[in-house]
């Protein structure tokens, strides 16, 4: 992969003997919008903290812009090129919106006044309100404003649209897309809103219990995953040995529903070879892929 902005290999991290991450690889290329998905407790926030350098992995490596994340001088320079939005949207509790923006600005020589003005107007944040008095959604917006305005080439966002209404969410998505398109920014974000990931991500990784279970270009996943809906003339007496690729099989009387992660054509032929069967192929949403892989494994 040319220009990997984030390159993580074999990340492992345990807390009190319990593994939170059990071997994660990440390859995020420049200009990509990368969706990072998983249930609560799957290891998303741990991963993001590792990427931010707030935690050190037990094994494995992380490189951002080709440099390892550690406490060296190079690492500090790299952090300047990254904008973060954390899960709890924590900000200094004793400042107002205005004060926090003015406080943050001088840390970043690449601060973009134009972006700051644009987002202050768009997000309509009350400048003299204290941070703890802001709603969750407003804190998300403020954190995003700070992350974007300092001219970051890479945004690492943990649930950036948490607490926002649909209009605000759409605004944020459009701005993220504009940043990728106009500024060539790379965006790595975790989200529970699968629809929004489906809308703007070009690549996704789904993790479950600390391990990656789905990874690839969203377009390719959409093409590879198919649902086979099979209606038989009689209920199957002997169980069928379905070919490779059948991820989730549900049989109810004379109907069988198969979610295939690949090999759909071969599975279709296999289904058609069953006596008196009728088979339909249906496209699959990201939600279905997610649920099939993480529910009750």
């Amino acid at each position, binding site marked *: 992969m040319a220009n990997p902005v984030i390159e993580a290999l074999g990340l492992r991290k345990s807390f009190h003997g319990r593994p939170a991450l059990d071997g994660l690889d990440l390859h995020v290329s420049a200009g990509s919008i990368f969706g990072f998905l998983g249930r609560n407790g799957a290891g998303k926030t741990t991963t993001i903290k590792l990427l931010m350098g707030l935690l050190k992995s037990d094994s494995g490596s992380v490189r951002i812009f080709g440099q390892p994340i550690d406490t060296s001088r190079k690492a500090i320079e790299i952090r300047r090129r990254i904008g973060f939005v954390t899960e709890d949207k924590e900000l200094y509790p004793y400042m107002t919106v205005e004060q926090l923006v003015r406080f943050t600005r001088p840390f970043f020589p690449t601060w973009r006044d134009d972006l700051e003005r644009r987002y202050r107007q768009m997000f309509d944040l009350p400048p003299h309100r204290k941070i703890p008095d802001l709603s969750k959604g407003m804190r998300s917006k403020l954190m995003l404003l700070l992350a974007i305005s300092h001219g970051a080439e890479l945004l690492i966002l943990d649930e950036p649209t948490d607490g926002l209404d649909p209009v605000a969410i759409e605004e944020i998505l459009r701005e993220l897309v504009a940043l990728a398109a106009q500024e060539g920014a790379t965006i790595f974000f975790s989200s529970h809103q699968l629809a929004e990931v489906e809308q703007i991500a070009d690549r996704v990784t789904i993790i479950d219990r600390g391990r990656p279970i789905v990874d690839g270009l969203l377009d*390719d996943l959409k*093409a590879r995953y198919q649902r086979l809906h099979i209606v038989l003339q009689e209920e199957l007496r002997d169980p069928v040995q379905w070919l490779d690729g059948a991820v989730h099989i549900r049989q109810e009387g004379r109907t069988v529903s198969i979610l295939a992660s690949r090999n759909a054509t071969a599975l279709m032929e296999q289904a058609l070879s069953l006596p008196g069967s009728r088979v339909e*192929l249906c496209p699959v949403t990201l939600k279905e892929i997610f649920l099939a892989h993480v529910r009750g494994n």
Partner: protein
Amino acid sequence: MLLRLNPSSGIPLYLQLIEQVKHAIEMGALRPGEQLPAIRKIAEDLVMNPNTVARAYRELEQAGIVEIKHGTGAFVSQSATGPTKILRRAQAVAQTAIERLASLGLTEEEIRRLVENELALLRVAKVKEPAHG
């Protein structure tokens, strides 16, 4: 000009966009030689990934429907209206097929499902299986 795509439909977005552009050309909303909107603009207007838009443009170029002039943009190719002759033939084929299916007693919904099935098989056949599965 272009309609919002449906990210949850299960059909890859770049394919939906390709169809939209082809449809716009067939309907005359885009004419031969006319410039398509910049990738950036489409990405922002439709709120979709610019890489996805770029992929759709590349495939339209490979199919000869669009010409990409570096530094200037993407233009509908002169030969892009060729399809109207093919379209007229295709429409005749579709009309005959649907009349025959209807005379067999199939409902509109049944016919639609039959067609969707065949299209899905076509789509699946085009997908390159990844090396590592």
